[in-house]
């Protein structure tokens, strides 16, 4: 691999993820509108919303501390970092060894901690409520997520996402029962971590049930836009981690320009399907009560553990 090409790939992927993430969100919203028999908004609507928010005047609560002001940028930075680690288009990116899957989970935890702190900064009742619910979901989801990733790490003997994907993408086609368990667990964690139904409803503003919305209640204008954008990148990153772990075929090697169009096409196809699937899940399920979230996520944890044990049993 030539390093200049590698860096070019790295930059290309980072910029691509940041720019394409709202598009994926638009696609999910459009699919959901179709399923709910509504007339669908434009797939570009998230971009319009961002542009609108960026042009508004920002309003801060009087006592906002620097933590409140800096959190949107930190969130955006964290998600940008995640976008650089996950092999979306290509494996073997030069930046990938800097952070493995455990560090990736750490990035998401860092972002979560800052958003919870920012929510408590103004000192409103909803902020604290949102922060504690978000941390509740976070501590339930994190072990399940790590267990899922450990299963993949045990299969490939590495915790680097790029090595895992290389191993999984270039193996003989075989059924891994452990990966099936892990995939279901991962899907459940994805729903919880990204504030989707059945754990949280991204479109709700009902005070008593909201989690994510309660965190960002006090934000407006460009800060809100950055947070919404970061949320879109997070969903995109989770989707691409899922694709990389469970449907890795078609991914390019860094520096291999000829494989790039094929990698793009494969990714677009997989994301389109995944987005439609996410919309379907959201259309079919209802939101769970908050205190059913522990059951939902401990199920995910147990599935992930089962996946790992299956791997040990099958592969000795």
């Amino acid at each position: 691999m030539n390093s200049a090409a590698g860096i070019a790939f790295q930059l290309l992927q980072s910029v691509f993820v940041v720019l394409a993430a709202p598009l994926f969100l638009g696609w999910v919203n459009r699919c959901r509108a179709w399923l709910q028999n509504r007339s669908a908004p434009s797939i570009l609507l998230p971009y319009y919303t961002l542009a609108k928010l960026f042009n508004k005047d920002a309003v801060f609560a009087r006592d906002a501390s620097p933590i409140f002001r800096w959190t949107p940028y930190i969130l955006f930075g964290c998600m940008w970092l995640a976008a650089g680690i996950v092999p979306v288009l290509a494996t073997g990116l030069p930046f990938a060894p800097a952070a493995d899957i455990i560090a990736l989970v750490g990035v998401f935890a860092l972002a979560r901690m800052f958003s919870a702190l920012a929510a408590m900064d103004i000192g409103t009742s909803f902020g604290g409520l949102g922060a504690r619910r978000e941390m509740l979901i976070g501590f339930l989801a994190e072990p399940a997520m790590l267990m899922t990733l450990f299963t993949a790490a045990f299969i490939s003997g590495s915790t680097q996402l790029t090595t895992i994907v290389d191993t999984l993408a270039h193996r003989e086609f075989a059924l891994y029962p452990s990966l099936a368990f892990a995939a279901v667990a991962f899907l459940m964690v994805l729903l919880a971590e990204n504030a989707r139904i059945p754990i949280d409803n991204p479109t709700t503003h009902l005070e008593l049930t909201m989690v994510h919305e309660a965190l960002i209640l006090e934000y407006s204008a460009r800060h809100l836009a950055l947070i919404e954008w970061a949320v879109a990148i997070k969903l995109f990153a989770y989707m691409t981690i899922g694709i990389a772990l469970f449907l890795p075929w078609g991914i390019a090697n860094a520096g291999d320009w000829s494989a790039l169009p094929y990698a793009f096409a494969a990714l677009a196809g997989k994301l389109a399907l995944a987005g439609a699937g996410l919309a379907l899940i959201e259309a079919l399920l209802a939101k769970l009560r908050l205190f059913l979230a522990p059951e939902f996520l401990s199920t995910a944890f147990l599935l992930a553990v089962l996946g790992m044990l299956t791997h040990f049993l099958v592969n000795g």
Partner: protein
Amino acid sequence: MASSPLAGSLAVALAWLVVAGLIPAGNAAFARRFAFPLGALAGVALAAFGLQAVWLPSQTLTLPLGLPDMPFHLRIDPLAGFFLMLLGSVSAGISVYAAGYFGNEPSGRLTLITLQYHVFLASMAFVLLADDAYLFMVAWETMALSSYFLVITDHHLPAIRRAGFLYLLIAHLGAIAILLCFGVLHGGRGDYTFDALRAAQLQPAWASVAFLLAFFGFGAKAGMLPLHAWLPEAHPAAPSPVSALMSGVMIKTAIYGMVRVIFDLIGNLRWEWGMVVLTVGAATTLFGVLYALMQHDLKRLLAYHSVENIGIILLGLGMSMVFIGFGHPAAGVLALIAALYHTLNHAVFKGLLFLGAGAILHSTGLRNLNDMGGLIRGMPKTAFYFLIGALAISALPPLNGFVSEWLTFQAALQATIVQHGVVRSLLPLFAATLALAGALTAMCFVKVYGIAFLGQPREPAHRTPVPHAGDAGSMERYGMAWLAAGCFVLGLFPTSFLLILNRVGVSLTGQGLSEQALAGSGWLWLVPTAAGKASYSPVIFLVVIALATLLAFLLVRRFYHGRVRFAAPWDCGYPEQSSRMQDTADAFGQPIRHVFGPLYRMDRRLPGPEDAEPRYTLKVEDRHWYWLYLPVARAAEFVSSKIALLQQGRISIYLLYSFITLIALLVFVR
């Protein structure tokens, strides 16, 4: 002198004693201006000597002190060097802080504190330097006693005397176990040097007995479950720099003792021992963090987190014993490195957090989180340092807590090489415990930081509001800055510490990390097994995240206007808002009580519909008091009340006892 870290360390320990002894009674200014800064300087020197000792072969020295036939033996090897480095560097920051913190103490008390404080430091250095069981126990007991006197600094309060007694009791239970353990190792040969103990060939059963005694004895000092009860009582009772020293450094000497006795003296590790350590470690981790989430007293909360972190260290030690027991020393050394790395990390960030709690206490007089709020405006610098500590303890990259948890995960992922099927599947589950604990810690520190530093000032329930007395003083800030810098250095340049700890591993087990790991590691890259398998680069990580954050900021600034208006909080448009509507520390823990309810002993009183003055009370207590401590205490009281029957208080009765004993001896022994 420069080439002799042993003599240097000894000089530092003696310097501490001299500083302690030389303070003219009642001269507070001397203590403030010279004693503590000198102590800090000695700490830095000790850290340098310790670091030097890691790279040199071990050195020994015999002091012509002690009992006639038993001179004191001293020895410094990489393990002792590493812990001396920990002691020196962390205590340096705490001593600087103490110079500011104790500034307003009445001079008589201050002289006493200074004396005890430096004796405490010196005794810890001697624990680490000791090379025979005799000196070890003398230093160990001096450490326990000097810290006991520091804990009961405010001895006019009955609660503090009680806490001190509990501490002394459990410390001595532990000391008895350690003494018995040395007895077992010694086997009646009359030589108590560690060399002799190391050479002893024990039967497997006796080795296991020695292991259990050492584990129990040092565990009592470390605060492992179920012997942790003294920690949340004694640490808050002590003045804050002493809490920082006890939580940051003293309980680490117990980890040192555990590694020294189990890995070095007993040797021939068995994997079953590792499973015992892992099980206890996992329970300690979870209970520690779950009880921490229930606390509203900041220092108690931090003490419970010390329990949790000891559990994390035990998880690493246990894994190491399992791997070595199964004959995989490379993986074992990795787990040992993870455990010792976490020991150092915890010393740094827990020291920092206790100092932060002390700064709050010092400036506002508050310890109860429910009375705080909005402190970031009055004390922004303390808030900044505390945030670093909070992020570090929550194991968030790129700070230091993350590195050691990451290494522990990497060690757990070596599980595939273990031949035993059950053990192999259990190791990742212990790692999952660690993940759960890490995420719960993050929740707990969102609670601490959000409630203490963010939000609006709360109206104190029990006392008149305290005007914020402003930020911490300059000495206090230097102390915190030193430890906060430690969080960054340990987090950003882990490879240098990995290499130091690898030396420790080599000296203990004769093996180090694999060649590939050492070849792949540079200052930028942390590679515990082999490049391509796992790597982490905190520097790149930090640079990228900072650049991305800055770039986002600059782009937004460049392309959009920067207009900002300030208004009242929106809060979904509710017009009536007061600072009492914010979450309290107890409210924040409510989801935890809901999910983990059965683990707590809860006493909850809900108001009835007819109550004229509706009140809601909730009391959460440690279950261990009820199933373990109180029954044991009752049994002890019962037994002693029976024995007390012997004591009639009349001289003739006692003479009768002597007579009967004499007769019995004449009849049976002859």
